């Protein structure tokens, strides 16, 4: 069974590689890059982050607080039926969009700009669902088409035993790494056919795995489900066990997340890949990639992304090892324990790098939804009459000013940093008495400051 899957995957990837010959974009989706962050904004942002971090470690609470904040309040049982209806609608929508993107990728016009698959995948799905998860909660748990399909099949036949182990599975970081490699490294990664085939392969693996091992397996191994669920722990809303709506302090949900090794791997992969994407605009990287295209560009990009992920991971492991020396724990255990506190920084990086992409290319999605296959349709009238732009200039690039974008970037990085430091502090005072907690925190704070300053410098140099 497994070997046949691997063979099928290999054959498909190979066949795709060979059959691609259409004109391509040498980079991911999106045409516009952000302007470099003004120097004063970078310096003030970094200074604020450094100052508040070290002040926070000493001045913040000495007994854990976030657990209580995470309890929050239930809005009431009357929200349950409303959320049930919403869930049914979103599950239908999720499967419908998945079917459209899959068929558009496989059969639609082979054009990055007019086929819906690239922007639906890399902008609306990847960036949009991250933002939605942090704002409204774990929306992917009901949008997820694989989960819905497996659920429907399980209704028709008895499900296999549910796994009780809640640790993140190894397929989760692997699937996200492959996805990010496609987006950021492979020179053909943003082509509709690539997306169609890869989404098809991923769907087969996920639906097959879900049917074989149950929805619990999907829950732990579907990389996007894991990441979006983790990010949803930052959200002020959640769904309680009785299915009703609850609310809590933003970011407080991190206190309920237990770290484990594959979760740590997943977080470092995403953080490193976003860092690598930020490097793409820096002059030294432009010099390296200059005049490269095709496979040679892919190889250089792959090495760059591996180095960025390695760098991010190394900084984190060293910091954890130093924390472990102070508290007398194994460094790897510390690293796993504190991995969820990096989540605010993961989201801050994503928002800083992709906010403008979402705002501008998201407009394109609204246009493409009228003609997902590039056949000249206009189902909802948004082709002839775009919501934000005009027929001749479909994307309104002046909709949000460059100053507003810069403020979103610097604010998200600083706020994400503060939330990361605060939740790590909360975890430390949960584990140790206040004195030891404070002494043990400095290496991790230094690591977070390093991520934040690097993030700001990349935005400044972009």
């Amino acid at each position, binding site marked *: 069974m497994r070997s046949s899957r691997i063979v099928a995957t290999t054959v498909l990837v190979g066949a795709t590689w060979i*059959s691609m010959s259409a004109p391509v974009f040498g980079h991911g989706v999106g045409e516009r*890059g952000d302007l470099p962050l003004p120097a004063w904004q970078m310096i003030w942002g970094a200074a604020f982050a450094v100052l508040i971090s070290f002040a926070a470690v000493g001045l913040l609470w000495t007994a854990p607080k976030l657990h209580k904040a995470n309890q929050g309040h239930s809005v009431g049982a009357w929200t349950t039926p409303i959320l049930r209806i919403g869930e049914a609608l979103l599950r239908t929508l999720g499967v419908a969009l998945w079917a459209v993107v899959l068929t558009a990728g*496989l059969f639609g016009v082979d054009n990055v700009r007019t086929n819906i698959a690239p922007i639906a995948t890399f902008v609306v799905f990847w960036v949009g669902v991250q933002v939605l998860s942090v704002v409204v909660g774990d929306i992917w748990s009901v949008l997820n088409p694989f989960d819905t399909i497996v659920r429907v099949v399980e209704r028709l036949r008895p499900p296999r035993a549910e796994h009780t182990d809640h640790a993140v599975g190894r397929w989760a970081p692997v699937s996200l790494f492959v996805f990010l490699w496609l987006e950021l490294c492979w020179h053909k990664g943003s082509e509709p056919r690539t997306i169609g085939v890869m989404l098809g392969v991923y769907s087969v693996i996920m639906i*097959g795995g879900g049917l074989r091992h149950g929805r619990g397996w999907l829950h732990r191994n579907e990389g996007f489900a894991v990441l979006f669920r983790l990010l949803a722990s930052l959200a002020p809303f959640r769904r309680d066990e009785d299915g009703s709506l609850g609310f809590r302090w933003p970011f407080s949900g991190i206190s309920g997340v237990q770290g484990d090794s594959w979760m740590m791997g997943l977080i470092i992969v995403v953080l490193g890949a976003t860092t690598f994407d930020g490097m793409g605009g820096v002059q030294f990287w*432009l010099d390296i990639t200059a005049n490269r295209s095709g496979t040679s560009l892919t190889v250089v990009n792959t090495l760059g992304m591996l180095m960025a992920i390695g760098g991010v991971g190394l900084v984190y492991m060293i910091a954890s090892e130093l924390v472990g020396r102070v508290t007398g724990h194994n460094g790897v255990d510390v690293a796993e324990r504190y991995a969820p506190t990096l989540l605010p920084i993961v989201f801050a990086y994503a928002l800083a790098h992709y906010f403008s992409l979402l705002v501008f290319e998201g407009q394109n999605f609204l246009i493409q939804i009228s003609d997902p296959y590039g056949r*000249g349709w206009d189902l909802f009238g948004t082709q002839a009459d775009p919501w934000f732009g005009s*027929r001749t200039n479909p994307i309104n690039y002046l909709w949000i000013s460059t100053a507003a974008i810069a403020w979103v970037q610097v604010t998200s990085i600083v706020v994400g940093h503060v939330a990361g430091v605060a939740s790590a502090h909360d975890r430390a005072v949960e584990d140790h008495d206040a004195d030891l907690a404070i002494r043990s925190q400095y290496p991790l704070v230094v690591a977070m400051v390093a991520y934040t300053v690097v993030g700001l410098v990349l935005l400044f140099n972009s």
Partner: protein
Amino acid sequence: MYRPLRRAIISVLAFLMLATACGSTASDSPSDVAADIPTDVPAAAVNDEIDSTDMDMVEDAVHDHDGALLEVEYSPVPTISLEVLKDNISGWNVHATPTDFILAPEHVSTDPLDGEGHMHLYIDGVKITRMYSEWYHIADMDEGDHEIRVELSANNHSALGHDGVALDTTVTITQELDELVDMATDDLMDSDEMDSTDMVMEENADHDHSEVTDGTETLTGDTSLQTYHLVVADGEVQTPGRIEIDLGSVVQLHIHSDVSDQIHVHGYDILRPIEPGGEVQINFVANLPGVWETEMEDSGLLLIELVVS
């Protein structure tokens, strides 16, 4: 689900995808690509692809382009006349006079109304700007003939036509070499003198023309001209990088290439074919802030990044 059944389903799915992947080579044939063009690029960009010396072709392309012309169904039908005058200091003054047509910038990007709208200015098939008044100043260009075309446009930016004929007018001007002496760029414009291994950049940001504020959509009040030369030799740009462009200035890109490809200025959606040994000149007003790539569309080679701010 039983093992054989599941295996069968996976095999069918795999086969379907394999078939699709192989099938995609067939849909990559040139005819398909050509058929895609009208849906890929807006009307202005279609003009760009036509050789600028053959105005008949440009006209045809405009007329053929579905939806490019908005038929005037009211009377009197507007008309337009155009004169392009050499400026005493530098550049050219475009004077377009519509009759039976009110320039209504206050209604731009709304629904069309009878007898009103604005105008679009094209140089060599490249859309330069909207015109909200009769006068507009353009900078000096390369030595040789250039087609200046102004079309009447409805409020919704559809080009106006009557009986299928565009309501536009074209004037050909000849830029003499000696008119370029006050441009810092002229001595480098001869391609023979250019070091083929280098991208030569020059910039005359000081070419401000404060008199050109007459109701055009120029954002800064001053129009500055920024000219850059790019050379592609053996399929490589020797010093790719970024150029800083002031928001609202007129940008001229002169691109020489020894390979055949298409030049794509992202964001501004300008797509121009280039032939081996040929030079392409691209003019546009840099009115979209951000970082925009200019690349060889087919090979994906990055030519330059334009930092517009």
